[in-house]
């Protein structure tokens, strides 16, 4: 536990440069400045590590970095996506608060690999405490001569800045983030072209999640194989799981990939008041909900959660006990996507409104027998028909809640009240 992003979390002033360097921090970056690494060596180490994008998509980080046209003329950019906001997810906030230098070093290493001399860390607008921590760390890094132009008289330059959002879940989508960083509405772009070719200000750009960047320095100092061995096949390393909901000790836990869900639940103190587990959303509000029975047999890694019928996503584990009204829970999630749809694609803009309004009608006791079919039909029409993944993210909870807990919806429609809540 706590071997990578959280390795200093129990230390005093764990966010300081002093603490970070005392535990080997910036050793890889200093070697890079001395010319002791080639970009290919770093990419190979990352490929060996099995590190996959921790923001939710799970794309192999080493491969992503290799897509950057590092020898192309002109400016290139490296961007950290700290626009955390998917219900259930709160791990990047803690990385920024408690280990900001790992993000800076991870981004610096990435900048060298991709020949991108400017970086931005896009932090969600409400995260003022994490933002101030990160700004403080940046100041320390500049003062220590770790960032800037021709650092330590080397040929390596890297300038890193933080950027603040202003409240929009959609900006966590990487091309919406680019639009936002350019000072526009955060509406996703068509892909292709991909950001590696046409990104920020039209220049080659690579965007990674905070946890992905924060994992890189430790992978480089201990080796890709070390990291891979912490996890299981196809899911190298450790992962931060944000466990929230009906547990005794909700918290972020950095554990090895492949840990049985039941053990993670124990780490989180078990079920509150000894209540019975009813349902689990394993990877954040966009990922399909699972029944207790299925969840208890699942392991916490990409393949394990997929086999159980859901996705690892950002590792945001939402625990619901038997007192939870699934109609209410889904209505709350549907409201989220309705509120956060950027309005660009018709199926999502209109569909998320339909989903919310039909669910609200059921909650108001005015549901109709055909509403379940209507919800299914609307989510099917959103799924796969939008520019970005927000549409799918809105559809997946609906399909999975209705599939796994259909009787609760039927009961609510028939009786005009919840089957579980009094």
């Amino acid at each position: 536990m706590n071997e990578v992003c959280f390795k200093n979390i129990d230390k005093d002033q764990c966010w300081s440069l002093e603490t970070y360097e005392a535990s080997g921090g910036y050793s890889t970056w200093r070697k890079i400045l001395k010319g002791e690494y080639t970009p290919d060596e770093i990419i190979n180490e990352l490929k060996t590590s099995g590190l996959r994008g921790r923001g939710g998509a799970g794309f192999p980080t080493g491969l992503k970095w290799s897509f950057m046209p590092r020898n192309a003329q002109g400016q290139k950019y490296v961007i950290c996506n700290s626009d955390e906001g998917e219900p259930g997810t709160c791990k990047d906030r803690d990385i920024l608060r408690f280990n900001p230098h790992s993000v800076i070093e991870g981004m610096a290493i990435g900048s060298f690999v991709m020949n991108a001399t400017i970086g931005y860390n896009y932090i969600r607008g409400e995260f003022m405490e994490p933002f101030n921590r990160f700004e403080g760390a940046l100041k320390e890094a500049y003062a220590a001569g770790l960032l800037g132009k021709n650092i330590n008289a080397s040929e390596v330059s890297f300038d890193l800045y933080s950027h603040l959002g202003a409240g929009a879940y959609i900006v966590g989508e990487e091309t919406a983030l680019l639009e936002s960083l350019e000072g526009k509405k955060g509406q996703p772009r068509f892909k292709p072209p991909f950001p590696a070719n046409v990104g920020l200000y039209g220049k080659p750009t690579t965007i990674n999640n905070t946890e992905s960047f924060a994992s890189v320095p430790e992978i480089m100092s201990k080796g890709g194989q070390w990291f891979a061995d912490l996890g299981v096949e196809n899911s190298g390393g450790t992962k931060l799981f944000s466990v929230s909901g009906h547990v005794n000790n909700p918290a972020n836990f950095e554990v090895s990939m492949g840990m049985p869900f039941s053990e993670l639940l124990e780490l989180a103190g078990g079920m509150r008041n000894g209540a019975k587990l009813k349902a689990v959303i394993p990877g954040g509000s966009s990922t399909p909900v699972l029944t207790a029975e299925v969840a208890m047999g699942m392991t916490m890694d990409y393949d394990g959660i997929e086999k159980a019928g859901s996705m690892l996503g950002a590792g945001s584990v939402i625990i619901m006990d038997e007192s939870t009204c699934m109609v209410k829970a889904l209505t709350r999630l549907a409201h989220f996507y309705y509120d956060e749809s950027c309005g660009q694609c018709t199926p999502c803009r209109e569909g998320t409104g339909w989903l919310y309004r039909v669910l609200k009608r059921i909650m108001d006791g005015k549901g109709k027998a055909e509403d379940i079919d209507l919800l299914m039909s609307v989510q099917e029409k959103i799924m796969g028909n939008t520019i970005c993944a927000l549409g799918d993210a809105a559809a997946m909870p609906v399909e999975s809640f209705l599939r796994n807990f259909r009787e609760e919806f039927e009961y609510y429609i028939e009786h005009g009240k919840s089957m579980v809540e009094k």
Partner: protein
Amino acid sequence: MIISDSAKKQIDIWIEKYPQGKQSSAVMEALKLVQAENDNQLTSEAIQAVADYLDMPGIAAAEVATFYENYNHKPVGKHIIRFCHNISCMLNGADDLITHLETKLGVKTGEVTKDGLISVKKVECLGACVGAPMFQIDDQYYEHLTADKIDDIVDGLK
């Protein structure tokens, strides 16, 4: 409308972060800074003033000001309580606590107290789910809320 010198100074710090000619990247912070100096609210004159300062079309700044959540276009209180009501907070009793807060302040979410001190908003996930239930007041997060804790925090607002 004129942007104050101190706001301009801070906007300039943000402009410096972006490449030359890309100063419109600073629009989100510029709008926040101007909003903070004008009763937490953005008028169309204020939005135009930001656009002029950043040498961008007024409509482009207005699009940003209306797309993102954290800009206010109607009067709000001196302090804004942003109460998360999404799933992790809901599972931890946020709905009852929101009702408690509304009763205490004598307002509904979306309204401002009569003395103009406090606005209450129901908001989507603020990314502190393991600290649920939680709310944000101005720039500060408050986690693991209870009715008593809320009373103490709110009573301390001036």
